[in-house]
């Protein structure tokens, strides 16, 4: 089936988020696959925001700029987006915005809301009209309204739904999907859920777009789960709180965006030398500095690879979709505790805010491996040493306060096995080796990137993180044109897994990195680690996620 693409536009504060949510919910529950993404400005009221929802009976992994239906809550939406309509595309809006003509569903939406007695119900009226237009189940629509609205506004919205439903006519004849149960979830929620499944009981953070919704999601679960969420006075406090909690034996996590991450880097080093498990999520947005707060970019990779003065072992995981976001978060927590290192999860605004329908997470696949040591409290001869030298560099870890007579001492200075400051060269060398050789262990567990495409590609697209869906759709489009294309999309990114990379760069004639940054950060890492030089770059740094068609156009134009 064709993928239908909706665009819902208006200004901040008009209730677009609720409208989009309702539409997504009914599509999801009807059994469609969908992918929706948000484009919004850094303001609370006014401006121009929009959400695009693409749905189909087949999986959808990317947004697209070819719109089938615009739902316009204001004139600006029509002006800005009309040109993106495909042939046969249409606009649904109030009669004051556009009057009835071919391709315009001009409806008395505002009048309807007046009838209800609350202008804010406009969006529910539009929802009702949408349900009718696409021949969706009215009862289902009602359930959704009942879920979303509470109190006195519920009745109003129920009424609005009916009015909207009745003012439209059924128009689109869609293939009906099989009834399957899927989750509708975005990247940040998936990370939050991963934290809960992974046993995080303390989340300390400072608000920063686009990471804040991880915090608010977890905060909303404080009543029904073990988690405690504490808002820090600043990001330095956030990461240090989390380290303190981790030291004391719980699974703890923090999240932020680039600017906040910048403030955390000294403490990242502390986690490395103190050998304290730490998971930090960086939901990237365009920098530098404040940059474009509500938009997307992948420009913190180079920074994060070596962030903090001095040298520590670390692992960097980029998440590619909500499923990845969930499972990788649970894995990151295990890795951090097993190797007693910082693990950084890289996401971005696109993924953070994009709702997708996916298979429900399988909790039986999730394990919580604490890697805690036991220590016999009756063995009074033995003294616990936090930094005991061991073959693989990982010292047994116990929880402070839990073994009578034994203490756990951690130190940000260079130290001996007991954790106390040293000055001598010999101990320093042994401790550096102890810590840094964890990188070798990590190299053994890194997961190879996903390869997608023809077996022996002429053209290899290399990317990482949230561009996965965009690249894969481009691969399909190009291969359907008869090209031989493959995509290699990294999730685990440091230490860099090199097997598939070397294999496919060996085969392909043209290797192209596709990245949402200016300097081609993955390409630089690849060259540094493997010597492989990438031939061409598709780099986008305007705050908007790349479209599959942009990749296709580039390849058509540049690869002959």
């Amino acid at each position, binding site marked *: 089936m064709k993928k239908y693409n909706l665009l819902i536009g208006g200004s901040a504060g008009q209730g677009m988020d609720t409208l989009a949510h309702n539409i997504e919910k009914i599509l999801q529950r009807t059994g469609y696959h969908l992918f929706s993404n948000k484009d919004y400005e850094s303001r609370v009221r006014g401006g121009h925001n929009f959400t695009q929802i693409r749905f189909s009976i087949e999986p959808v992994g990317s947004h697209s700029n070819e719109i089938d239906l615009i739902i316009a809550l204001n004139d600006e939406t029509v002006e800005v987006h009309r040109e993106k309509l495909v042939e046969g595309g249409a606009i649904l809006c109030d009669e004051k915005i556009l009057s009835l003509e071919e391709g315009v569903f001009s409806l008395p939406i505002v009048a309807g809301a007046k009838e209800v007695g609350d202008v804010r119900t406009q969006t529910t009226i539009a929802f009702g009209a949408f349900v009718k237009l696409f021949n969706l189940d009215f009862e289902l629509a009602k359930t959704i309204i009942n879920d979303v609205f509470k109190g006195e506004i519920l009745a109003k919205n129920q009424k609005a739904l009916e009015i909207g439903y009745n003012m439209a006519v059924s128009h689109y004849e869609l293939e009906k999907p099989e009834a399957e149960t899927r989750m509708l979830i975005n990247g940040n929620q998936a990370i939050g859920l991963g934290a809960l499944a992974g046993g995080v009981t303390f989340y300390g953070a400072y608000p920063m777009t686009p990471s804040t919704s991880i915090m608010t999601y977890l905060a909303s679960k404080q009543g029904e*789960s*073990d988690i405690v969420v*504490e808002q820090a006075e600043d990001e330095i406090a956030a990461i*240090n709180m989390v380290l303190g909690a981790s030291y*004391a034996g719980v699974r703890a996590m923090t999240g932020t965006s680039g600017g906040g991450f910048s403030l955390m880097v000294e403490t990242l080093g502390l986690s490395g030398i103190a050998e304290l498990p730490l998971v930090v999520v960086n939901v990237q947005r365009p920098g530098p500095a404040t940059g474009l707060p509500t938009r997307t970019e992948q420009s913190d990779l180079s920074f994060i690879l070596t962030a903090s003065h001095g040298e520590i072992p670390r692992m960097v995981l980029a998440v590619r979709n909500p499923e990845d976001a969930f499972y990788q978060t649970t894995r990151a927590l295990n890795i951090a505790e097993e190797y007693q290192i910082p693990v950084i999860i890289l996401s971005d605004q696109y993924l953070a805010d994009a709702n997708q329908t996916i298979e429900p*997470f399988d909790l039986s696949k999730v394990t*919580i491996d604490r890697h805690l040591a036991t220590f016999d409290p009756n063995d009074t001869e033995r003294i616990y040493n936090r930094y005991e030298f061991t073959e693989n560099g990982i010292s047994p870890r116990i929880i402070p306060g839990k073994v009578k007579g034994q203490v756990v*001492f951690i130190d*940000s*200075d260079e130290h001996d096995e007991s954790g106390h400051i040293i000055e001598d060269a010999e101990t320093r060398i042994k401790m550096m080796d102890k810590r840094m050789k964890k990188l070798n262990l990590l190299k053994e567990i890194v997961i190879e990137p996903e390869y997608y495409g023809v077996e022996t590609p002429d053209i290899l697209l290399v990317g990482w993180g949230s561009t996965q869906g965009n690249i894969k759709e481009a691969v399909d489009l190009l291969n359907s044109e008869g090209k031989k294309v493959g995509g290699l999309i990294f999730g685990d990114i440091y230490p860099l897994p090199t097997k598939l990379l070397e294999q496919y760069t060996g085969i392909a004639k043209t290797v192209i990195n596709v990245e949402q940054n200016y300097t081609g950060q993955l390409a630089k890492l690849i060259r540094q680690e493997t010597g492989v030089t990438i031939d061409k770059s598709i780099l986008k740094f305007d705050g908007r996620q790349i479209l599959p068609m942009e990749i296709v156009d580039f390849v058509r134009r540049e690869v002959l």
Partner: protein
Amino acid sequence: MTNLNPINTKQFDSVKNAWCPGCGNHGILAALKQALAELGLEPHEILITSGIGQAAKTPQYIRTNGFNGLHGRALPPALGAHIANKDLKICITSGDGDTFGEGGNHALHNMRRNIDVAHFVHDNQIYGLTKGQASPTTFPGHVTSVQTEGVINQTLNPIAFAIVSGATFVARTFSGDREHLVPIIKAAIQHKGYALVDIMQPCVIFNKENTYQWYRENLYQLPEDHDPTNKIEALSRAFEYEEGKGVPMGIFYQVEKPTFIDQIPKLRDGKPLVDLELNPMKAEKFIKEFL
């Protein structure tokens, strides 16, 4: 009461310290061991956090659980550990620079939280470890290698700062006066809520103004009838410091208020977080919400 019990303090002995002979830190370290021993606490029950500085080396020299973190960052790990395991008795031992300079924001906000910790500021009114620059508590006029014409900033008044910020136990004592020091340390540890103790601590190398003798001449006890539950009275007394009347010592302020943990029912009434069973299946109900 302040009799040293050698059997009890020995359990706290750690590596040899690297402080200068005569440094006020020696007295604080000894008093802290004594106080902990007298309170019947054992090393594994206690967590001491600190930042970086001479004072901040204290956890190195006392055998308890210890988190010797980054300069200025003694408090956030204390908060994190406190939330994770409310059973740990938490002390913070850090310098005036660590606490109020680099770490000022954390002092402010953790006092607002009224977390249940005892915070001992080794207040030598100077940056000791970095060789004698002004700290926030250095007096105006004090000449240093950076403040070459003398300090010009208003002295940060630890007592007033703590009272206004929300600490619920605020006291000053002197590292050279063990009889005063040990009971105050004990009271601070026993207090439920944020206890800030400003311990005047001579730095015999880099602070030639505030010497043992200077403190002996300028320190004086709060009057017997001082009411530590009266915030305004406590502040008036605190300001005597910068009015040049000398350095008042004693318990300025002490009130009972719900602590941070008291106000989070789950933490107050439940097991410490660290003792909860972790199980992925606990997330099952949340998955349902996305269907």
